[in-house]
């Protein structure tokens, strides 16, 4: 790929992804509209969310066509965030537990 032209891709790809994003957004809206509850709801929300995010990053932000080096730079640091999220979820549950046990809420 030449340096001067940057990221050029067929317009069709953009249009397809654009429509796909609309569809996925509709689906995630439907999850709420039909009052799905519990694990089914959360799983669906996460699936649609990651699909949407994936398409935006990969196609609109051209990451799919970027070099592996850049992909690693962008995604490896997020492991720190993943750990933070995991531990904060555990911490939140722990705090909640002590409140339920000892406090009159």
């Amino acid at each position, binding site marked *: 790929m030449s340096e001067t032209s940057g990221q050029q891709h067929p317009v069709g790809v953009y249009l397809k992804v654009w429509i796909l994003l609309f569809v996925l957004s509709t689906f995630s809206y439907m999850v709420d509209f039909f009052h799905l509850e519990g694990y089914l709801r959360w799983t669906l929300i996460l699936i649609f969310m990651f699909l949407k995010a994936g398409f935006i990053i990969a196609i609109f932000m051209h990451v799919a066509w970027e070099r592996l080096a850049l992909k690693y730079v962008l995604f490896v640091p997020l492991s720190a965030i993943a750990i933070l999220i995991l531990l904060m979820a555990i911490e939140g549950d722990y*705090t909640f537990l*002590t*409140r339920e*046990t*000892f*406090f*009159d*809420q």
Partner: protein
Amino acid sequence: MKIVVALVLLVIGSLVFHWLSPWWMTPLASNWSAIDTTIDITLYITGVVFVAVNLFMAWAIFRYRYDPSRRSHYEPENKKLETWLTVITSVGVAAMLAPGLVVWADFVNVPEGADEMEVVGAQWAWSYRLPGDDGVLGEVDSTFVGPLNPFGMSPNDPAGNDDILISSNEVHLLIDRPVKFLLRSKDVLHNFAVPQFRVKMDLVPGMVTYAWATPTVKGKYDLLCMELCGIAHYTMRGYVVVDEQEDYDSWLAKQQTWSEIQSIPPGDAIAGKASYATCAACHGQQGEGLVAFNSPGLAILPAWYITRQIEHFKYGIRGANEGDTFGQQMVPMANMLADAAAIRNVTAYIETLVPEKPVDTIEGDPHKGAAYYNTCGACHGAKAQGNYALQAPPLAGQDDWYLKRQLENFRLGLRGAHKGDTYGHQMVLMARSLQNEQSINDLLAYLNTL
């Protein structure tokens, strides 16, 4: 080459300092000898590394000192050496980590059947709660906290009625019984630390944390707040007394349950008026205070404060020191009040008296005083109106000559040094931040403007 000598001497000096210095951990008084062992393991391993690395460096600096006719050895890498060093280091690290994790597992898992007690922290005092006969601590909530319910006991939970509430900074523990400290804070972060027990843990508002220990040695130990909790952090002290069963029982018998505390009748001002006749001789008919008798005004003081002071006089906590001449005079007077009910009555009467503004007797620079008062205001209130929650009496409207004498007494330890005087102890530390008479005068001049 001075640096070589210096490095060697520093290494030797550090070792000598370590072995000869009298400063080391205070003797253990709990089951946590395993913690001391992990410290020893780490100390030896790190000590060897410290000595080895620095002596090697000193030797290298000496052996390879500059010589213009020589070149350094060109060896950018030595895989074998680096691998060996990595492996040995990893082994050493594992040797330190493993015992640490094992002991931590002991700390996290409280033994079954451990006694439970709650430690409550608030700026800047400790109090405690025991579960009572049913062995269950009642639920609490900070929304219930108020002057009559300092622990925030929930009215919805009957399990709390037999809870024993200890509004003192001293608590007793049974020897050789594991105890789980449930830690709760009413306001900000605090830390429950008894150095002899080794373990410590923060008190976090909005949740309950814990630590556990089995006291193994009889004695009275300092309890410290070790997490910065505001201006008077360094005065937040308490005592943990480890008792045999018998002493423990007699201490416990003196404590009151939540339902007992709720059933104490209010003071009777009419009955109190009669006993006040004696007081009036010195403190004045309207509790206005008389400088000639060195008697302070009482009318501005709230009942809870007068109650505490009368009790202190009565039980030798205040006025027992020979240096406190006027305090000593108060002791026989306080003894004339026979029991808690009599004290309640007289304080109830004093509350009905209307205070009047005393005459200023002290001159100073109120602007400087205002700066000093910043610290005092944290407890005594921005307008020196006093604060029940901190057990801090009002200062505005009090005779300035009296306040001056008390500040000096606190500074000299004539008042407040007794271990039973929780809040006086804080004032000893606080009063010491006023270094001389001039600063006391400035402070009082400022108080006179309030």
